[in-house]
């Protein structure tokens, strides 16, 4: 039997108004009711004690339907998709009645108004995703005729059909090997299991390995090698020899920069754990390390923006929990590269134009909501982030998520950042169960998105299951010293986590039938590589397993012994006593052959345009403030809980004018005045001219934002995230090499080490336009540099808002004719050629002098000059403080528009109180690029002499209007 409880919300429900607003935007006047629906097969679900527990009688009615509606639209999940509300309801059912039967949630909207069927279909497309959700629409008549909506129990109907492994014949031609890689292993019915993503030389190595073993491979062995050797896990592009750089880009540049910096800084080295763990760790204080990791979750977010983003954020939280013996997540970061949400491009995955890409507005709303749900539910503040817009992100958006952690330097008398699985330790997995979700996620994110992209690659995170697990680990179990090692289950699932940890002991034997499953019917290879979320893997000495599993159980967390770490040198898996995988550990981890890469490079860009000076500087400045990359993103900032944990010092919205800042300061320990400073920089459009300029500007911005906010310059570290496209093309690899070379130079110059990084190399969409013509949209090569630094006392933090009229305004750093790929040129429809070059030597001089001034508290407000140049910076400072500025730029030898909108790097605008003016100027004595440019005014106007005069209110409106309705 199907038992269905409908909880009708009161008419004035905020969610109902949201639906009414969407319909209103479609020019439909309608009113809506929201009904929460809970379904179960348990008869206990019909009991009053249960149904009453689902409704607040003041605002909700049980199993009542308003008579007066025209359409009923129900949205629920497809079978097997994570249903968090359903899980909670199942717990309530068990608590109230003792019946341990699954419940499922769905939501019913009852709509009254002049809407047609097609309108309701359009509404459903905006608020649901058919990849993961089922949609049912009934007219009122049909609803009456059927006696309501259909009763659906979305239970996974897989059979437990004597499941075992299949052998895979590798004695085949090269062409057949290529097909095997592209389409996957064949099932008995001829269908294929999805891409392995293995290049031919890898397949040949696997072929000869099994030839030498003298046996056929099993499917699970092939899948394991595909996961372990995937670009996503192995970072082959960064690891391979490239041109004459035998060590490759990672060892030859990025890791080398950190090594050289650590060596030259000697005793003042801030790094403790770099590139070796799930996150990078630097010294916070005598007793703690601070860790940081930034991940991307691009491909899943293109298919299911909400699911992709929430999975991304809770996933990177686990990187933090899996650092060393386990760090406590203290701050989240986010960043989205998206197409214009107002645009409606027509791109399709298939030639017949039936499978359309999600519209940019859906993607934007989905990824924002995903990080909101994941971050807020986990109790981790999210003060820092950015959104960057370029229409080439329509095919694959970039979704960056990061988590900062805090960990004691010594736990139980041992270094907190070190761990190693020992032979004899039991393998314990704790947290969520395994389902078919997320299968082929790692191999899938290593290829371009097209028609064959698997929907099962999408998962939906469950932050509460993870929160229970995280609390039990970080707040209790960790400090008992019960486990030898911990790591998270991310891409590749158990195959990655167990495989990596076993490198410590030298082998493992996993009993796969012991892994707890969400439902029956999964094949061994699926269990092994499933990316079901919210799981951590541990190495636990046998004497500790019972007490550890017992404590987890008391906290509502399932934990299970699933095997043993060994020193056998073999990666071994059994399935009900039958050995189904037995690989040499060295082959598994290092058997992939080197594939040397070669590159070419051609600088992009046009000739520098000859543009007329603007007629109205007021108009161009307000237009610039309204541009997507410059305007306010307050609607995102207020949706993210930025002051949970009570630690926010400098939050996302600064000054009474609430300007969306690019840097945050957090006090992760309530008992210490020390602060963590976070920021980032990226300039994707600069890649259209030169990726070297793009990468240098991004790194400089990440550093300079932190410097401007008052970071201790000698306690600043960096993270790199390369999101490239078409990385199998020599030209794209040439662009990559240039970018990597320059960030090596800059990092060494600034002495800011890289501590962690991640790359995503194929951000391309291959599909069709509305005429069925093949198209490829490649994301612009993008390097995101994130910065993390320490501030000895948060008293030294500096916000962007001017504080008092009469203060002096300074421009620090040189402004050059550098408008190539700038926001200004883009506003005018040009690309140009003079992309900003970064003068690291000159910048370093400034940052050191500035750091001394901020330490001495000589600066009242400051803001690094970024997108839109000096003009936009002055305008944002005006809005933030609510004070006018009286500025004179006549002393500079640049035409006014170039002076205002050039994006030359290395610049900061600071305001200084009269009492500090003398000391400030003395501090910068001998630095030729410290320019007094005016004062904070008593009026409410931004006045740039002989150029423009605009009121604060006008600027404020221009800055906030663009995305106000989102």
């Amino acid at each position: 039997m199907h038992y269905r409880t409908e909880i009708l919300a009161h008419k004035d429900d905020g969610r109902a108004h949201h639906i009414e607003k969407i319909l209103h935007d479609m020019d439909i006047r309608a009113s809506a009711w929201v009904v929460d629906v809970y379904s179960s097969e348990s008869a206990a679900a019909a009991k009053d004690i249960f149904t009453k527990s689902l409704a607040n009688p003041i605002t909700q009615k049980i199993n009542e339907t308003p008579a007066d509606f025209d359409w009923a639209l129900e949205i629920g999940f497809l079978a097997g998709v994570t249903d968090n509300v359903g899980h909670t309801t199942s717990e309530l059912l068990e608590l109230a009645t003792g019946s341990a039967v699954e419940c499922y949630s769905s939501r019913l909207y009852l709509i009254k108004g002049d809407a047609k069927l097609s309108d309701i279909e359009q509404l459903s497309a905006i608020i649901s995703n058919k990849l993961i959700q089922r949609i049912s629409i009934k007219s009122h008549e049909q609803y009456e005729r059927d006696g309501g909506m259909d009763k659906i129990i979305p239970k996974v109907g897989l059979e437990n059909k004597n499941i075992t492994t299949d052998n895979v014949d590798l004695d085949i031609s090269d062409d057949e090997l290529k097909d095997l890689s592209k389409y996957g292993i064949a099932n008995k019915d001829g269908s294929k299991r999805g891409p392995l993503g293995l290049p031919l030389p890898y397949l040949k190595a696997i072929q000869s390995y099994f030839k030498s073993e003298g046996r056929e491979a099993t499917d699970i062995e092939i899948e394991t090698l595909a996961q372990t050797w995937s670009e996503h896990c192995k970072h082959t592009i960064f690891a391979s020899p490239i041109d004459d750089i035998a060590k490759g880009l990672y060892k030859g540049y990025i890791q080398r920069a950190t090594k050289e910096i650590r060596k030259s800084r000697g005793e003042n080295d801030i790094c403790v754990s770099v590139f070796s763990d799930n996150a990078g760790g630097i010294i916070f204080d005598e007793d703690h390390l601070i860790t940081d990791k930034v991940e991307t979750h691009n491909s899943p977010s293109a298919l299911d923006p909400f699911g992709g983003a929430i999975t991304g954020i809770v996933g990177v939280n686990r990187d933090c929990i899996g650092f060393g013996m386990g760090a406590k997540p203290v701050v989240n970061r986010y960043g989205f590269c998206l197409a214009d949400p107002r645009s409606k491009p027509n791109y399709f995955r298939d030639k017949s134009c039936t499978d359309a890409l999600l519209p940019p507005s859906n993607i934007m709303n989905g990824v924002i909501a995903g990080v909101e749900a994941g971050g807020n539910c986990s109790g981790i503040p999210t003060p820092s982030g950015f959104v960057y817009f370029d229409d080439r992100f329509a095919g694959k958006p970039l979704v960056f998520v990061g988590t900062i952690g805090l960990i004691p330097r010594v736990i139980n008398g041992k270094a907190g950042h070190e761990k190693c699985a020992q032979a004899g330790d039991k393998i314990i997995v704790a947290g969520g169960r395994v389902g078919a979700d997320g299968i082929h996620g790692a191999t899938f994110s290593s290829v371009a998105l097209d028609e064959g992209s698997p929907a099962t690659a999408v998962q939906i995170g469950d932050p509460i299951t993870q929160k229970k697990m995280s609390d039990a680990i970080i707040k209790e179990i960790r400090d008992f010293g019960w486990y030898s090692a911990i790591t998270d289950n991310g891409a590749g699932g158990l195959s990655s986590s167990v495989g990596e940890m076993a490198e410590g002991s030298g082998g493992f034997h996993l009993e796969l039938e012991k892994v707890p499953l969400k439902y029956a019917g999964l094949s061994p290879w699926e269990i092994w590589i499933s990316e079901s979320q919210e799981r951590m893997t541990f190495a636990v000495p046998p004497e500790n397993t019972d007490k550890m599993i017992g404590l987890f159980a008391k906290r509502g967390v399932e934990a299970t012994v699933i095997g043993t770490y060994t020193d056998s040198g073999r990666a071994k898996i059994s399935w009900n006593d039958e050995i189904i995988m037995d690989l040499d550990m060295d082959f598994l981890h290092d058997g992939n052959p080197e594939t040397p890469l070669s590159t070419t490079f051609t600088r992009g860009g046009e000739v520098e345009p000859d543009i007329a000076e603007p007629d109205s500087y007021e108009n161009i400045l307000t237009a610039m403030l309204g541009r997507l990359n410059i305007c306010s993103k307050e609607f995102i900032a207020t949706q993210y809980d930025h002051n949970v944990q009570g630690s926010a010092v400098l939050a996302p919205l600064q000054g009474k004018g609430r300007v969306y800042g690019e840097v945050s300061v957090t006090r992760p320990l309530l008992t210490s005045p020390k602060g963590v400073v976070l920021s980032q920089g990226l300039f994707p459009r600069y890649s259209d001219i030169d990726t070297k300029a793009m990468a240098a500007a991004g790194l400089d911005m990440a550093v300079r934002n932190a410097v401007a906010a008052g970071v201790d310059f000698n306690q600043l570290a960096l993270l790199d995230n390369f999101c490239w496209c078409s990385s199998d093309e020599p030209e794209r690899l040439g662009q990559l090499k240039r970018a990597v070379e320059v960030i090596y130079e800059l990092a060494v110059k600034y002495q800011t080490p890289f501590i962690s990084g991640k790359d995503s190399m194929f951000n391309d969409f291959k599909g069709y336009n509305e005429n069925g013509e093949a198209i490829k949209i490649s994301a612009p090569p993008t390097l995101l540099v994130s910065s993390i630094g320490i501030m000895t006392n948060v008293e030294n933090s500096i916000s962007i808002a001017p504080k008092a009229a009469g203060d002096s305004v300074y421009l620090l750093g040189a402004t050059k004719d550098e408008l190539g790929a700038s926001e200004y040129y883009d506003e005018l429809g040009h690309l140009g050629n003079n992309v900003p070059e970064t003068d690291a030597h000159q910048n370093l001089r400034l940052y050191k002098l500035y750091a001394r001034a901020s330490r001495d508290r000589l600066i009242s407000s400051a803001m690094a000059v970024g997108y839109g140049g000096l003009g936009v910076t002055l305008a944002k400072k005006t809005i933030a403080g609510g004070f006018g500025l009286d500025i004179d730029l006549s002393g500079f030898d640049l035409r006014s528009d170039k002076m205002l909108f050039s994006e030359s790097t290395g610049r900061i605008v600071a305001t200084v109180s009269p009492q500090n003016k003398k000391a400030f100027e003395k501090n910068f004595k001998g630095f030729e690029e410290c320019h007094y440019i005016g004062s904070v005014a008593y009026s409410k106007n931004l006045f740039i002499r002989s150029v423009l005069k605009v009121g604060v209110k006008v600027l404020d409106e221009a800055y906030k209007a663009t995305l106000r309705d989102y």
Partner: protein
Amino acid sequence: MAAKVIVLSGYGLNCEEETLHAFNHVGIDGNIIHINELIENPKALDEYQILAIPGGFSYGDDTGSGNAFAQKMKLALWDDLKKFVERDTLTIGICNGCQILVNLGLAPALNNYGERDVAVTYNATARYQCRWVDLKIESKSPWLKDIETLHIPVAHGEGRFMMEENALSKLKNNGQIAAQYINTNGTLANGEFPANPNGSINDIAAMTDKSGRVLAIMPHPERGMFTWQRDDYHELKDAAQRAGVELPEESEGIQIFKNAVKYFA
């Protein structure tokens, strides 16, 4: 005997550490206790004088914020809980804790403990809001003694109090409306966003039971207990530097916790 506080944790509650820190800062000792531990040993309540249910996202707000956690407490812990609030104790629920107290019927408990009289439901904007608000305090609750206004933040998706007219008039008549959202000039927000961030009826931000010893408050006093936590910290810090004065360490939110000390003094 000095008062001791239990701060609950588990199932997605997440503000337990900073909430305990607030009590510790004013000199009240206490423990963070997982709800399952308390269910296993409910007599532990006898050893404490203060119960704090902190903010968070218990059960992910599924089936309505605070509902599932409240159902769990009601089924497993009700008699002991009722006994605790009927003693001369103090109870505070902040944000998710407020939603839990309301769903438990411990606040406002217009007739009896255990009956739900009001709902805390989806913000009128249907969107989570994290922002600083100003509150007017008019209450005889020991938690709010000598407090007239508070500048502290909200962070919630479901903070909108709703109730029947007669429940509202009873609340008013009994003096159980503990805090209301106001504009910066001191006038009531009158339901207007953003001063009233959620559309709450009568601008209600907090309420008490009839005794005033049980406080259910949506905004977070523990996130506004120190000056450096404030949204205008950089302005205050700059002004103090110009004036050559020390900036006070504490901010308005801490008064609530200090009042707990006074009550048991």
